[in-house]
């Protein structure tokens, strides 16, 4: 539960089994106990030793190099990410899994700190399962994303770095939320997160339509990731794509962006949108 709800609810203080928050409430109760950094102000302590903005080399740098995207369309939600991890100027890995399978019908993407994303999304998976058992129905995407947002809000200012999209299908259709460690939680039909997001947005915004077919959506996602990896040094590797439909998500075979270059590069030379095959596809 978030801090405000915690103050207002009476159950937290009553429950002798209380750990982090009111375990008797069905809405949220994380059993995760956390050792915070010693001292009174963990946030200030952490800030001394981590730094994103300045170039001071002595500090721990958090990597945000990535391109992840997700968009809702008529047939569900398409999620696509790259797979490169960088430490400074070194490519640490080209095969990172940036899509986290929370449960068979919910996906989360990873941008920012890999450990933060994967840990908290696994905790989210546990909470979603508990919700299902307590309430005898699947959790909605809105509720799942809110749980995640409230979980990380408790650590606001303490150095968590996470920009994730929660995608799924619930009773009200396809759902997509963006949640980050600053406490932001917004809903939209289309998101792209990471250092390559600007490039991906360019491609997505030019060709996105809600009533795309599944094949068109896959092509759009693949293209957007490809173009981001082409221009952003911190994105690359392979395209991981998932389609979330009514009965759960399906994962697609991986595609190396190096090979996609030969597929898409000739098209970049086209200067007129009219000559683009995507436009021809749309007109057809």
């Amino acid at each position: 539960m978030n801090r405000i709800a915690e103050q207002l609810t009476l159950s937290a203080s009553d429950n002798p089994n209380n750990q982090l928050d009111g375990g008797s409430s069905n809405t949220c109760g994380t059993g995760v106990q956390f050792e915070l950094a010693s001292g009174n102000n963990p946030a200030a302590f952490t800030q001394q030793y981590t730094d994103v903005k300045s170039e001071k080399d002595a500090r721990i740098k958090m990597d945000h190099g990535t391109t992840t995207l997700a968009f809702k369309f008529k047939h569900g939600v398409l999620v696509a990410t790259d797979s490169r991890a960088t430490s400074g100027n070194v490519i640490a890995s080209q095969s990172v899994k940036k899509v986290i399978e929370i449960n068979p019908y919910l996906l989360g993407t990873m941008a920012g700190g890999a450990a933060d994303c994967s840990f908290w999304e696994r905790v989210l998976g546990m909470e979603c399962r508990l919700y299902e058992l307590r309430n005898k129905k699947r959790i909605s995407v809105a509720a799942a994303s809110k749980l995640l947002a409230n979980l990380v809000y408790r650590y606001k200012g303490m150095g968590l770095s996470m920009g994730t999209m929660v995608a799924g299908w619930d009773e009200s259709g396809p759902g997509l939320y963006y949640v980050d460690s600053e406490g932001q939680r917004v809903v939209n039909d289309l998101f792209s997160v990471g250092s390559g997001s600007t490039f991906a947005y360019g491609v997505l915004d030019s060709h996105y339509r809600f009533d795309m077919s599944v094949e068109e959506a896959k092509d759009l996602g693949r293209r957007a990731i490809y173009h981001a990896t082409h221009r952003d040094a911190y994105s690359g590797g392979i395209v991981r794509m998932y389609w979330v439909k009514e009965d759960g998500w399906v994962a697609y075979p991986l595609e190396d962006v190096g090979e996609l270059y030969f597929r898409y590069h000739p098209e970049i030379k086209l200067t007129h949108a009219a000559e683009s095959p995507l436009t021809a596809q749309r007109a057809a």
Partner: protein
Amino acid sequence: MSYDSALTIFSPDGHLFQVEYAQEAVRKGTCAVGICCKDSVILGVEKKAALKLQDSRTMRKIHRLDEHIFLASAGLVADARVLVDMARVECQNHRLTVEDAPTVEFISHYIASVQQRYTQSGGRRPFGISTLIVGFDPNNTPKLFQTDPSGIYYQWKANAIGRNSKTVHEFLEKHYAQDMSESDGIKLAVKSLLEVVQTGAKNIEILVITKDGNRTPNIQEIEQTIKTIEAEKVEEAEKKANKRKPATPA
């Protein structure tokens, strides 16, 4: 050794006497009845006679927990107040974290959990109330749940709590029909309350909840319903009398 003074001690034959005594307190409270109909749910309560100098508007027996969830209690009114407030906070908490309206089952489970918690801690006594929780789920199905001081909760098609609840419940078992209309439901609620409320319409309060809202029939409507019920009773009695009369020879 007396086993009834401490809450956290079982008696040798497996009773928690404090809980049972709380249930006795419930049996002293005014009656409340709940009935699920096809598209509505009816809550009827026995209103205690307002004393002359008292403002009767401040004597609330039916409390609203959320948009479409209402609660009626029988037993200690002060305990009801506390529990109702806890439930209201929990409803809003649910809306805040899950971004959706709570189901009737959810809030009944919560209230029952609170009541159960107070049967298992030291230094506390159980809540001296049973509740009837009625309302509509987000998928527009009418629901009725009942909780009691032991912390159990069950779903019912129709039930009664409080004074003479056994009589009313037996009456409901005899006369309840599946998928009743709203007016039939109101009639049944009034009829069943009349079994125990002798003084008529001014001591009966009805709340009708539909998926779109709720309304409180005013006293004239209840009086009209009572008149209809009496008329029907007279008809029934006449029919029975005619059956008993021997057929006139042709």
